[in-house]
């Protein structure tokens, strides 16, 4: 994982190189792709949608990286883009399918469900609302600080802590039920 200074240096290089050179941008992609994919997959609950979301987000970053002005850390800005894009895509899909349950009932992808443990944890995660799920994923899978999560979600730190506490308790309960 890059430090904030390394990220800023890479972003500065991107601004100089793009659109002709992609080298610095690809370094950024390599550093963040797995975490972005994890967030997309756990939000979309479907490998094909998650891959599409990942590509759309990378393209969006590629076209708008010049608008990053350094007021927040790069990772905060990036995850805000990812989170908003995922929420919009989920809302669009729900409007298209008309039913929330359809999202959860997509057949699991064997590439991303290597164990029963994973399936149980995903099932427990699916019981949470989009916002609570996002808080848990950001805290424990993308390893963001509470302060950063608060900036991404536009909430106060104490609201994020409360939401995290509630989401964790629900997750623990559902996970234990499935054992």
């Amino acid at each position, binding site marked *: 994982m890059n430090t904030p200074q390394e990220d800023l240096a890479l972003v500065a290089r991107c601004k100089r190189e793009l*659109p002709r050179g*992609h080298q610095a941008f*690809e370094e950024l*992609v*390599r550093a963040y*792709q*797995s975490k*972005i*994919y*994890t967030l997309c*997959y*756990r939000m979309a609950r479907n490998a094909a949608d998650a*891959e599409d979301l*990942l*590509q759309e987000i*990378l*393209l969006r970053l*590629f*076209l708008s990286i010049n608008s990053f002005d350094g007021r927040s850390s790069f990772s905060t800005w990036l995850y805000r883009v990812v989170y908003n894009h995922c929420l919009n895509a989920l809302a669009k899909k729900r409007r298209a399918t008309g039913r929330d349950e359809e999202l959860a009932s997509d057949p699991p992808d064997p590439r*991303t469900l290597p*164990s029963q*443990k*994973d399936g*149980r*944890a*995903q099932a*427990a*995660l699916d019981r949470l609302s989009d916002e609570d799920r996002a808080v*848990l*994923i950001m805290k*424990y*899978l993308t390893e963001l*600080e*509470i302060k950063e999560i608060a900036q991404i979600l536009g909430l106060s730190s*104490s609201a994020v*802590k*409360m939401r*995290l*506490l509630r989401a*964790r308790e629900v*997750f*623990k309960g559902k*996970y234990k039920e499935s054992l």
Partner: protein
Amino acid sequence: MTGRAEENAEIPEGMEALRLDAPSDTLDRFRKRASLVVGTRYVLERQFYGFWIVLNTMLKLLFKHTKVPLAAPEEHLSSRYRHSLNKSKEGRP
């Protein structure tokens, strides 16, 4: 449990299994997509530039051939007066 304890709370059991690696072809797919987008933008910009040059030339030609004369010639005068004007021009040495 709130405050600092919440920040340092351990990852719940089972959650660590949810970490995933991005597909191995992510960068290749992105390169193809990015080059397509950059290429399309370039072509559209060039096309717009070409279109602007053609439009500009056409407008210039159009206005060149339909220029409204600033000095009022004889057509603005009545036919009777024009006739007498021509007569007087012919009579000039």
